[in-house]
């Protein structure tokens, strides 16, 4: 079976305590915690794998230990000189290790595989597990004034409604940024404003106009969804909660979450539902990619192109509305299938809209490519070096722009992708232009995929009555190639209709750690563009317009006005 070959290779070198198979292509090996770094490094570099996710788990009620799961996607390194792993052998190997609660430490994998850095920092925040040898031991997710001895995801730590008291601003501990030595200018960007309006704080360390290094702090709005789901949600509600993780690739999250639950329960959904899931997620890809190409134009001051691309994006939103009944949050996925079918008439209308989108996308792309000034702003900026991409496992267009062909639709085809033919896109050079180019190619293949789905879609049931076979302690992973790269959800089932542990890893999470290397050596003026080319998740409301319909007058409320309204009591 899939992956057995690799397990044998690992067995020759290391002592594997136990091997289990969760799903057709998902395997878990249990190793001693002292072997952990060597095993992960061996799979990552010698066999050829990328880090998909890492999950910490409090399993004291199951086996009296804490557990760590390093999920590696064995797909070959994809660098030009390395061996290729054929598609039918690709699989996920999870390296599991147990940590006794008395010691709470494990050897860090980060010095060997840099991609683990954020995950290991997060595990400290959430469980208090210390990675010995981790170069960067700062907090990642929790706020600076969070109590030092409270680790929220431990099962016995706190009630999910508990909020620790907020420290006075003057007593709040300072977050230390990694400042390089030398006489450098420290430029703060944020916390509320870089490129788009999202709480993220960036420090650019500059020598004159050139960025020498950068550091950033995110998670200002960490919402604790995992804790909430473990305590309060049932499987029916979780899909809807997952959809609200992101305002752009919400559908990818809901599919990933539901499919993880379906895999853990061993449910196979009908073909028609599989095809329609793909249709919706490709529509989502269309609008997300158009959004990012538009914003890349806007970040360089090209508002005409930005406005026009957003106009095309409007058609994709209408398409989504036609297919699911919602412009953005589709609320369509349930365990066992989908909730809303498409009629023949709707398919016909969708095909017309698609044709329109295709024509306009090509037109606008030609026009932008004709504009030499625009293209020069993108070329050679924010280069993601191939070796750094190899070390940090970024995902999606960010990775493909650097010439590494990572696409879960090809590597680990799920649902209907097994039946669909399409050529994945790849860029060269790893600069902003390469990423934008990959996105344009993705747009075209997306349209192609939707057409194929409509053609191949079988008739029949849209959902099955899911008799979820819930076994406490069983786990599986659901993954979706979202517009920004793969989105991975990991679910461990618990008793009484609830999850034991839910780990949602959004695609941008994997892209952030390598950003500082992309920023290095560029000018301050391009910082916003580089961050934008990563396609980070951003959402916020900047302003409100009040329109008086009777007098036909409108007034824009500024931040001051909004604050004054909030303070006013009635």
């Amino acid at each position, binding site marked *: 079976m899939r992956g057995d070959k690799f397990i044998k290779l690992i067995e020759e070198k290391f002592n594997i305590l136990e091997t289990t198979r969760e799903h057709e292509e998902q395997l878990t090996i249990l190793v001693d915690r002292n072997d952990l770094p060597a095993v992960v490094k061996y799979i990552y570099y010698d066999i050829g794998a990328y880090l998909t996710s890492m999950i910490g788990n409090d399993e004291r009620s199951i086996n009296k230990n804490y557990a760590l799961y390093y999920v590696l996607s064995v797909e070959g390194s994809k660098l030009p000189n390395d061996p290729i792993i054929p598609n039918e052998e690709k699989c996920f190997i999870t390296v599991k290790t147990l940590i006794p609660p008395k010691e709470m430490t494990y050897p860090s994998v980060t010095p060997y595989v840099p991609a683990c850095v954020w995950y290991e920092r997060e595990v400290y925040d959430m469980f208090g597990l210390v990675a010995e040898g981790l170069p960067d031991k700062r907090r990642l997710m929790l706020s600076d004034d969070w109590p030092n001895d409270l680790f929220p995801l431990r099962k016995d730590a706190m009630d999910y409604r508990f909020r620790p008291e907020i420290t006075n601003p003057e007593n709040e501990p300072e977050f230390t940024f990694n400042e390089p030595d030398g006489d450098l200018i420290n430029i703060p960007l944020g916390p509320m404003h870089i490129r788009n309006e999202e709480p993220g704080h960036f420090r650019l360390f500059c020598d004159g106009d050139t960025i020498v290094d950068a550091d950033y702090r995110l998670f200002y709005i960490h919402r604790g969804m995992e804790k909430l789901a473990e305590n309060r949600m049932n499987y*029916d*509600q979780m899909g809807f909660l997952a959809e609200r993780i992101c305002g752009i690739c919400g559908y990818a999250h809901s599919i990933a979450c539901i499919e993880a639950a379906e895999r853990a329960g061993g449910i196979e959904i009908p073909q028609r539902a599989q095809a329609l899931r793909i249709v919706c997620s490709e529509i989502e890809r269309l609008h997300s990619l158009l959004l990012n190409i538009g914003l890349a134009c806007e970040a360089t001051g090209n508002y005409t192109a930005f406005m026009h691309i957003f106009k095309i994006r409007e058609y994709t939103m209408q398409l989504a*509305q036609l297919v699911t009944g919602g412009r953005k949050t589709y*609320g369509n996925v349930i365990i066992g299938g989908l909730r809303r079918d498409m009629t023949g008439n709707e398919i016909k209308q969708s095909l017309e809209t698609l044709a329109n989108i295709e024509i306009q996308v090509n037109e606008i792309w030609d026009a932008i490519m*004709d504009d030499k000034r625009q293209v020069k702003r993108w070329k050679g900026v924010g280069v993601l070096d191939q070796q750094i991409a190899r070390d940090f496992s970024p995902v999606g267009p960010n990775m493909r722009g650097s010439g590494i062909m990572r696409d879960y639709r090809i590597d680990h085809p799920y649902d209907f992708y097994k039946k669909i033919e399409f050529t994945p896109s790849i860029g060269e050079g790893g600069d902003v232009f390469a990423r934008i180019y990959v996105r344009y190619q993705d747009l075209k293949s997306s349209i192609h995929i939707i057409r194929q789905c409509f053609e191949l879609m079988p008739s029949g049931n849209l959902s099955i009555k899911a008799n979820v076979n819930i076994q406490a302690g069983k786990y599986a992973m659901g993954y979706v190639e979202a517009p920004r790269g793969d989105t991975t959800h990991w679910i461990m089932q618990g008793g009484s209709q609830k999850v034991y542990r839910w780990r949602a890893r959004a695609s941008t999470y994997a892209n952030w750690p390598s950003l500082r290397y992309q920023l290095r050596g560029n000018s301050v003026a391009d910082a916003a563009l580089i961050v934008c080319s990563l396609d980070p998740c951003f959402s916020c409301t900047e302003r409100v317009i009040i329109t008086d319909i009777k007098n036909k007058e409108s007034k824009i409320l500024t931040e001051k006005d909004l604050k004054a309204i909030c303070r006013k009591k009635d």
Partner: protein
Amino acid sequence: MMKLIDITDKYGLETCKYPLEPYLVPETYRGQPKYKFDLCIGCAACSVACPPNAISVKAVDTKVVWEFDCGRCIFCARCDEVCPTGAIRLSTEYELAAKFDKSALIQRGEMDMASCAECGKLYSTKRLISYTLRKLELSNLSEERIKNAKFYVNLCPECKSKKAILSLETEAKEIL
């Protein structure tokens, strides 16, 4: 650059003058759920299905209070799917802003409760019982079976189980 402006010119305007003119949404749009009190039977299926707990059905004194808080609603249409009578349907309404008065977002309905024929305890809404009786008449069951069911409909859960056990016992005795 000029090419871009030409394209923009070619396709004209996409924006509409909303709110000065209406913005049309497709029929399948999932807007604000609308509650038809006359159809509601207080079966609480919607409150069970609702993922964000926006709908609550509670017994207050002698009434069953159905309450929907649109501020919590995520417009998923689960309630619409499960409602047996079509009392709650998603409309195409999308203008939901309430001016500093959140009570404008709440829809409410109160239904009388029926008392148990045996012990007199309030246990369900009168509408749910008459709905069940109506459905029973339409059902394709034997007359005796319907008669039996009609008798049990008017009992609260505790009395129902007591009666059922009692009748089973007597039946068993008769057979013996």
